[in-house]
Structures are given as C-alpha cells and as structure tokens.
C-alpha cells in the first residue's frame, strides 16, 4: 500500500482541512460574536427576523445604562473578590506546595488529601457553608467571599505548583544553598523565577474559577456585594429578559479575563505544556 499522494490529492486534502478548520472556528466564535453584536443592537434589531447579522451602528446605550444604574459596579466587586482571593490562594498555596515538593511534608497522603478537596462538588457544601457564614456574620461581605474562594482554590494551587516546583532540578537549589543563600533567598532567587510560567498559568485559572463562580455568590450575597454572574440573573425576569443588558454585562464581565489571558498568554502556553510534558 502506498501512502504517497499526488499533488492534486494533496491540494484537495489541504482544502478540506481548511474548510473543516473554518467551520469549527465559526462554530466556536459565532456565539461570542453574537454576544458582542447584541450588546450594540437596538431591541428591534435584537428580535428581527431574518436576523441582523451586523448591527446598524455601534450604539453604546446599553453600556451607558449599566454604568448609570450602578450595575457596572458589580464588575468591580468581582474584580476585588476574585483578585484578592486569587492572590491569597497563590501566595499561601505556593509556599505549601514548596513544602510538599521539597520536604515531602505529610508524605503522599497529605498531597492526595489536599487535591481530593477539589473533587467535591461545591453544591454539596453550599448549605453548611451558608449556615456557618450566617453564624459568623459573613453573609453579604467582601471578606466572606474572599475567604471562601481562597479556601476553594488552595487545593488547586497547591496541586499545580507542587508539580511545577518538583520539576525544578533540586541541584539548582542545593547550589544556591551551598553558595550562601538561606532557604528564603533560594525560594525568591531561584524557585520563584523558574516557576514563573507555572505561577502565571495557575494564577489565571485560579482567577477564572473565582470570577466565574455563581452558586456561592448567589447564596452568600444579598445587596452589598453582588458579583457580576449574580447581577446577570437579575436581568432574567419571569416575563421578559433584558437581552441588551445581559449581553452588555456579559461583554464587560468577559473583558478582565480576556485582557489577563492576552497579556499572559506567553506564560500560559509554556505553563500548560510544562505541566503536560514531564521529564
């Protein structure tokens, strides 16, 4: 059996590949485009049949309404909560991971126990957490949600960073210790720079987990600390949906993550592939 293809067969195959790639790209990108498009449309354009594929003009009325009515503040709430909890989880988790990777603290059992916390569906503990928050007076507070998201993200951070740190050759740290560094100095001067890609990748995913959380934000907030996923549900009424507000708010809510991923994509790719290929 011969695998050699004629030039014509190669051209056909290439064309087919591009066609499939184009179809898949459109399938994935179209909903995102549609979301953006709706956010700029008038209500008539939104419900028009046949559909208005491209908005007549780029109207910012929907966005202005969000800022005027104060709904855009929920984006800020989400930023503060997700940002703070991610920073805390990364800081604490990385040090824990270092301890596990280098000193084998708790042996294999502790490491497995930590990651097993992540395997539990959050819905299972929503009610007990709610009761605990009521008792502690933490419902509808920033620090309440920050604490919760930090706790939820810690196992993930510890698990990922343990792998990245373990991949750093031990000799590099030993060399630094012999050369005159303390453990802390070794961590900051050797481990931290070398684990940068892993840190960035883990930080982005940690942020996204916290950013996208809905169930805990819904149950544990009332009026003071509404996050953007919860705010979105306020536009979904029993009799009508404010699609223009839903889409505009969704676009605003996507922006921070989009910016973060764009800025850090160099580290993301390296971080993800480093984790995949273990020497």
């Amino acid at each position, binding site marked *: 059996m011969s695998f050699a293809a004629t030039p014509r067969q190669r051209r056909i195959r290439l064309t087919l590949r591009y066609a499939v790639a184009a179809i898949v790209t459109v399938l994935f990108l179209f909903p995102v485009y549609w979301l953006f498009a709706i956010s700029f449309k008038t209500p008539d354009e939104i419900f028009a049949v046949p559909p208005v594929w491209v908005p007549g003009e780029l109207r910012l009325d929907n966005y202005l309404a969000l800022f005027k009515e104060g709904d855009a503040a929920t984006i800020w709430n989400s930023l503060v909560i997700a940002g703070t909890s991610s920073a805390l989880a990364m800081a604490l988790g990385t040090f824990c991971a270092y301890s596990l990777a280098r000193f084998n603290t708790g042996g294999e059992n502790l490491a497995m126990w930590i990651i097993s916390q992540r395997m539990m569906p959050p819905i299972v503990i929503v009610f007990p957490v709610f009761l605990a928050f009521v008792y502690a007076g933490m419902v509808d507070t920033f620090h309440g949600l920050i604490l919760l998201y930090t706790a939820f993200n810690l196992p993930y951070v510890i698990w990922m960073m343990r792998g990245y740190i373990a991949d750093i050759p031990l000799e590099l740290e*030993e060399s630094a210790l012999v050369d005159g560094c303390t453990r802390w100095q070794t961590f900051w001067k050797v481990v931290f720079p070398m684990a940068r890609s892993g840190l960035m990748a883990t930080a982005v995913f940690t942020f996204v987990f916290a950013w996208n959380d809905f169930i805990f934000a819904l149950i544990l907030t009332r009026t003071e600390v509404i996050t953007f996923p919860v705010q979105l549900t306020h536009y979904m009424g029993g009799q009508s949906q404010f699609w223009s507000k839903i889409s505009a708010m969704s676009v605003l809510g996507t922006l921070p993550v989009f910016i973060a991923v764009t800025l850090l994509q160099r580290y993301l790719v390296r971080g993800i592939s480093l984790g995949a290929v273990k020497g």
Partner: protein
Amino acid sequence: MAEVRIKDLHKHYGHTHALKGIDLTVGDGEFVVFVGPSGCGKSTLLRSIAGLEEISRGDIEIGGRVVTGLRPRDRDIAMVFQNYALYPHLTVYDNIAFGLRARKVAEPEISRRVDAAAEMLGITTLLSRLPRQLSGGQRQRVAIGRAIVRQAPLFLFDEPLSNLDAKLRDEMRNEIKRLHKEISTTMIYVTHDQVEAMTLADRIVLLRDGRIEQQGAPLDLFERPATGFVAGFLGSPSINLVPAKLLSRGAVRTVLLETGEQLELPPTHRVEAAEPEKPVLLGLRPQHLAVAGAAALPPGVVRVPTRAELIQPTGTRTFVTARIGGTEVTAEFGAHEMQGQDAALEFAVDLNRCLLIDPATDKVL
C-alpha cells in the same frame, strides 16, 4: 585551604544504612577522589560533607572547625554538580557572581573575581550569554568558575564530567587537574569512572557498601590492592580472575589450575601461605599477559599455551580473548603483536605481578 576530618560518620535512610562508620582525613591542598560502584555511598558522603544531607552520627571538621549540623552556607565550601546547576534565567556573569552577591560582596570585587575566573577558564567572551546558549563543556566551565570565585577553602565535585562525551571529558579532566595545580585548594571529587580517579587523584578512597574498602595513592591501589574488589574495580580491562588452588610444599608455592596445569610462583612473590592446599583466585591483569616468543623468559614469567578466541584491535592496543585454566581471560597487547600470529599461541604470564585472592574473604593474600 583546609584539612577535612571525618570521624565515625554514619548515615541512615530509613532502614538503609548508607554510610557505616567512615573515618577519613583529607589533607590541606590534597586532591582526593571518592570512587566506587553505584550505591556505594560516595555521593552521600560528599553531600554529607557539604551539609546537603543530615548525618545520623559522627563528626565533620573543615579547616579545624566542627561543621556538623551547620547549614551548607555556613561551611564555606564550593560545589560543582553533575548537571552544572546553572540558573537558566541568569547570564553567565550573573551565574558566576551569584554566590558572591548572596554573601553581599561589593560589586567591584565581584567584577574583579568574575573576570579573573573567566580568564582562567577561557570563557570571557561568554559572560553575557544565557546557559541555554552554551555547549556542555562551556556550561561545566561556568559551573567551575562559580566555585572558583568563592575562594572557598574546600571544593567539592559531584561527578561533574558524567554528562559530557568522551572527548570533552578528557579535556575537562585536564582542566580540572590544571586548576588544582594552579590554586592548590583542597578538593574532594566523586566519580564512578576509575580512569578519572586514577588520573586526577593524589589519593583514592574506594568505597563499597558504605564503607571504605581501601584508600591510598592511585598506583598503590592498582598494584597492591587489599581485596579482590579493589583489584577488579581499578584497571581497564578489569583483572582476570582464574579459579585455582595454591599448593605449598615447603618454600615452593605452585598454582594449580583447573585444567591441571601447574604454575610455579617465583620465590620473590609476596604471598604468604598457611595451608598446604588453599583455593584461590589467580588475578592476572591484561597488561601482564604477553605473547611468549622463542627467547627465554625472565624469572617469574611462565609459558601457558592457549588459543586466541577473539582479537579486537583498537589502533593503539589489541585485546585478545583466550583461556587460561579453562577460564576466559582478556589480554592486552601492543597494536601489532598479533600480526602474523596464529590463533594457537603461548602466553607469557608474569607471575611476579599476579595477585592471589582468597575467594572466601575476598582478601588478597
């Protein structure tokens, strides 16, 4: 420079007793090589001296100062690792300067020392490069440079040449030897390669199963090994061991091979025999077997007829596989000695230099 004293050093890894009572002194400016097979404890011993391993019992002194329990940074040592241990995010200059910066040495002094070390190692043009832009040999030079600038009284090398190809290894070995000649620092070097050990060491410490099997000058260990293990470890190709019996009748001692041949030991041979008949292993180094010509052989050299089974010329030497006393042996001849020679030949066996090993105790008689 510093003298290193190790007293009754023990190291346990859980139930494994890795180092079993090491007593050793390394003199000021001496180049000592720890050598031995995998798992013998040589790297563990080196790392214990560095403070990278906690010891279970015993004491370590460097330069008259007890360092047992001190952190590596407080022992004032420099170390070169097998995998270079260069920081990939720092330039060559910053890699070499790393230890000095950690110890808060002033930048002008750092610059002076780095330039001097780079000049010594021929890496001045590489100072602004990153490690990934260097070859294996260049990286190892940078690693050595990082040790030199510390001006530490003790240098430790943990198999630094293992990752290099054969040619580069020879080059770097010469560099290290030259370095020791130039700076005369006390150096402890770990390797599993007996050629490195023989060529570099002032003194070899041969380890086996966590204990010192024998220590001494390279030629001493090679020519007067204490045990069969030492005899077999040093020398390439390794020593041939032929099962035999040592027969002693008064002052006459003969070696009886399994094929019935009897070889009379010269009276000058140092072996002492207590029993009339004793099983031994006859140790013959490949270099002590030659092709016996027609001329009379010197005293202590005997003829043993044999048949060449394999001939392997390397260009500079020829290795011949044959049998003595029914046991396969390897002989090392000059490059052209087998030319025009029949497969049926006679060995000239130099019994003056042979070793007799007690198979029960592994001691050389």
